[in-house]
């Protein structure tokens, strides 16, 4: 016993990553379609995110490949949305620059986002943090969280809303001031 954990070879990891990508492709496209309101673009972004995930997995292990994939796709969509807004004369002020230039290194951006959100976690109240972790890490519904923490469902929603908004604010607007 005590045998050393057997690790899969990088190629096998890449294979597993490709399978994961294939299995959630439909969900990813649906999510991106909602975000962009453009079916063709949603498919383009989903495929680009998938390529980046697979390329990244060849370089090193990706701890949370699904979250990574959706995160990269979301950031690609954010770039597209910003470009659309910049090309819109009314939005030329461009005060929504969060420091990630369009076309920036997406892997570095994901790592930076994770670092910013991790830091922001410490600024939440313990209750808001508990609610957030139960909802977003453990996948519990607001009702389950309300029962577990003896809170009103509306209170759970408010905690979750504030916590998510605070994390969102940590990702954006840092360099505006």
């Amino acid at each position, binding site marked *: 016993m005590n045998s050393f954990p057997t690790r899969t070879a990088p190629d096998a990891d890449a294979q597993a990553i490709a399978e994961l990508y294939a299995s959630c492709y439909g969900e990813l496209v649906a999510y991106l379609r909602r*975000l962009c309101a453009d079916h063709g673009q949603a498919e383009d972004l989903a495929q680009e995110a998938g390529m980046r995930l697979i390329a990244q997995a060849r370089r090193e292990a990706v701890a949370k490949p699904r979250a990574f994939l959706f*995160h990269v796709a979301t950031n690609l969509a954010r770039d597209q949305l910003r470009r659309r807004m910049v090309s819109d004369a009314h939005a030329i002020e461009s005060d*929504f620059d969060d420091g990630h230039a369009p076309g920036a290194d997406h892997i570095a951006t994901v790592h930076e986002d994770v670092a910013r959100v991790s830091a922001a976690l410490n600024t939440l109240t313990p209750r808001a943090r508990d609610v957030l972790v139960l909802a977003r890490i453990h996948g519990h519904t607001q009702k389950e969280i309300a029962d577990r923490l003896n809170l009103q469902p509306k209170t759970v929603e408010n905690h*979750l809303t504030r916590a*998510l908004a605070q994390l969102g604010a940590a990702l954006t607007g840092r360099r505006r001031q």
Partner: protein
Amino acid sequence: MNSPESLLQQAARWHAIASGRDLSAEESRALDHWLAQNARHRLAYADICAAAFALEQSPAASDPASAVPHATRTSRPWLRWSLGAGAPLLLVFALLVGPRITPSWQNWNSDHYTGIGKPQTQALADGSVLELDTDSAVRVRIGSDRRDIELLRGRLAIAVAKDPSRPLHVLSGGVDAMAVGTRFVVDRSDLGTEVGVHEGIVRVSSANGEAVELRAGQQAFVGTSEVDARVGALASNDGWTRGVLSVEQMPLSKVLAELDRYLPERIVLTDNSRAAMPITATLPLDDPAAALRALAQTSQLSLRHIPRVAYVMR
């Protein structure tokens, strides 16, 4: 209402509503309507989504030591580990092999658990003192006629409060180790459970197999697909209760597997020909990364750290 903050709040509320469930058709339409109102709505919603996916990848959020308590949990004072009054000491080991997943459901279903690198000590209702090692979880039931401690993962030591009317059982997988006023070690892996006796007598039984009584200096191994215990000489190690990993002529792969338990990252040895290299060392477990660096240096292996992912030794 049009400041970016309040847009983020509105976007966050949509995300909060959709948390853990699918939106109803009506809610879904309302969200699409809100998104279509203004490009800034879309971007705010995308920002919140990015933050939520970043959170999923954040090691800080998945840290079991910071996991969420039950509202009803009563806090008991943590006691320092002590071997006073000749309390019989029961040690339980569990080794899980394979990629590390944060078994949050185990924490939820446990009575006590610890995060990686954060051992803790606690008094139980019957007066026994429980020490949980890194990344461990137990369920405890103290009844009127028996005491059960179920090891869900990891490793524990327990100083058993003497009470002949309520024998204390440690359940690890299908193996039941019953304390009869003694000190012993149970080591659990995917392959099976090992029980080693340091003092006194331990009765070991598995689901279908015959019970065996082990005496001091003996250990038994029950494989997951076996029913009978294989008995041999004692070789288990309890240095972790003193915060050190003390090994003598232990294969490098085993030493790395031990240190791996104390680090959030996995340790990967890329050169299998070095796996059997014998190691004799005493390494500090309160700074496992330093222990790993020292080990790499003395073994003349290179060590590469990929933060939050792995240590690669070659």
